[in-house]
């Protein structure tokens, strides 16, 4: 069984190394500030051997986005869920340099949800064509006017 590490414990550990990064933690996930995300991710990868990035998900909560990172350690078989909030026009730091597996997933999110990742080597639309207007997975997207 993959053991989910206690988010509050993780939050404490992160707090010791990167102060002000963690904003909150609930029973599932650790919430971090988006600016500190990259540092936190690197810290987790190096110190907790979270070498496997299972999935990145973005959820549109109307006033902000929530980006969810499911991190797993193949060696120790434990996992951490990292959540970040980012504003509608905010950019997120890309984690491609830490986990190559983020490459297509971040492009996926950029294309469909419209969150830009700074530092991504090849950030462009992945499924939709270049002239497509808007980002369909946003809740305020409507198909009228989507065609160019």
């Amino acid at each position, binding site marked *: 069984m*993959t053991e989910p590490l206690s988010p509050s414990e993780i939050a404490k550990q992160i707090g010791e190394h990167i102060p002000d990064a963690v904003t909150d933690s609930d029973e599932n996930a650790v919430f971090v500030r988006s600016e500190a995300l990259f540092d936190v991710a690197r810290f987790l990868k190096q110190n907790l051997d979270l070498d496997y990035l299972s*999935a990145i998900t973005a959820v549109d909560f109307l006033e902000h986005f929530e980006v969810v990172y*499911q991190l797993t350690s193949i060696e120790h078989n434990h996992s951490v869920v990292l959540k970040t909030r980012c504003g509608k026009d905010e950019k997120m730091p890309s984690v491609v340099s830490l986990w*190559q597996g983020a490459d297509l997933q971040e492009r996926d999110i950029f294309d469909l949800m419209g969150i830009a990742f700074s530092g991504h080597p090849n950030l462009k639309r992945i*499924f939709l064509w270049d002239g497509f207007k808007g980002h369909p997975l946003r809740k305020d997207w409507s198909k009228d006017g989507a065609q160019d």
Partner: protein
Amino acid sequence: MALKTEPVMINFGPQHPSTHGVFRMRVTFDGEVIVELEPVFGYLHRGIEKLAEAKTYTQVIPYTDRLDYLASMSNNFAYVLAVEKLAEIEVPERAQYLRVIMAELMRIASHLMAVGAFFNDLGAFFTPFMYMFREREKILDLFEMVCGQRLTYNYMRIGGVSHDIPERFLPALMRFIDEMPGFIEEYDWLLAENEIVLARTKGVGVLPADKAINASISGPMLRASGVKWDIRRADPYSVYDRFDFETPVGLRGDTYDRYWVRIQEMRQSTHIVKQAMQQLPAGEVRSKVPATLRPPKGEAYAHIESPRGELGFYLVSDNSPRPYRFKVRAPSLINLTVLRDLCLGWKLADAIAILGSIDIVLAEVDR
């Protein structure tokens, strides 16, 4: 002495016999050697993640069939697991076992297809493909018997499965499971030692273990690189912790290992199905679930080991009958992350073989 040559750009796909659907690779060649490769996605994008937000939780199940259409059962499975996690629904024992049987049969069927198509990519004249299709057909017969369809099963339901199995199912399954190892043996005779196959696949497109992990590769591809990581073992879902099976791992992570791991996994799957048949308890197959399910506010991520890798569903509920967010962690897409790195420096024919060994289903890649 190096000849000065002019690179040629060739588009493979979206219509090409061996891109396994409408996938496109923009490849730059120097002679026959690949110097640049860019995958182009999206020709089969249907926006299922968006569509699902307008469906009830049950109505989404037929849509999951249409993600990885070669492994619909696995998709159903992962999705209902996620919903059950979200809504905290108990599933009857018998249904759990039926799900496992179906998922493992699906794995065999999908791997048969993957290996058969892979040999077509290597240039075999459809013979392995036809042999493997023959066995896949038997599995589809079984699925048809259970749920009435041969491709888009829509078999699993939130809280169980749609039907109990018919009387004739277990004997027919028994025969299949008895015969299957013999057929796998035959595939090995036909292919495993063939010198041309070895020459074409050994050492080609090597994916080292650390790179595979770093690139979030999953499934047979990850295991071929020598990482013993199988979600059925690492994070057992349903009743997988009750079965005895092995996780085959490759040595080098080359194209041959990816083929070899799939063949071995078929063997292991027959073992699992056999055990599941023996342990199959009697009882209900579907627990009582309200017709209009309104899971409590929150989110859930459930992942399974689908034939192609870690298939995950991330669901967010806002206590309405429809998922607020429906996200698929598509193993086919993420496994393509390393396609470029694997192919660079290899020849045109190798790129086709490498793509075949990754085993993608475009409906899942593009969603």
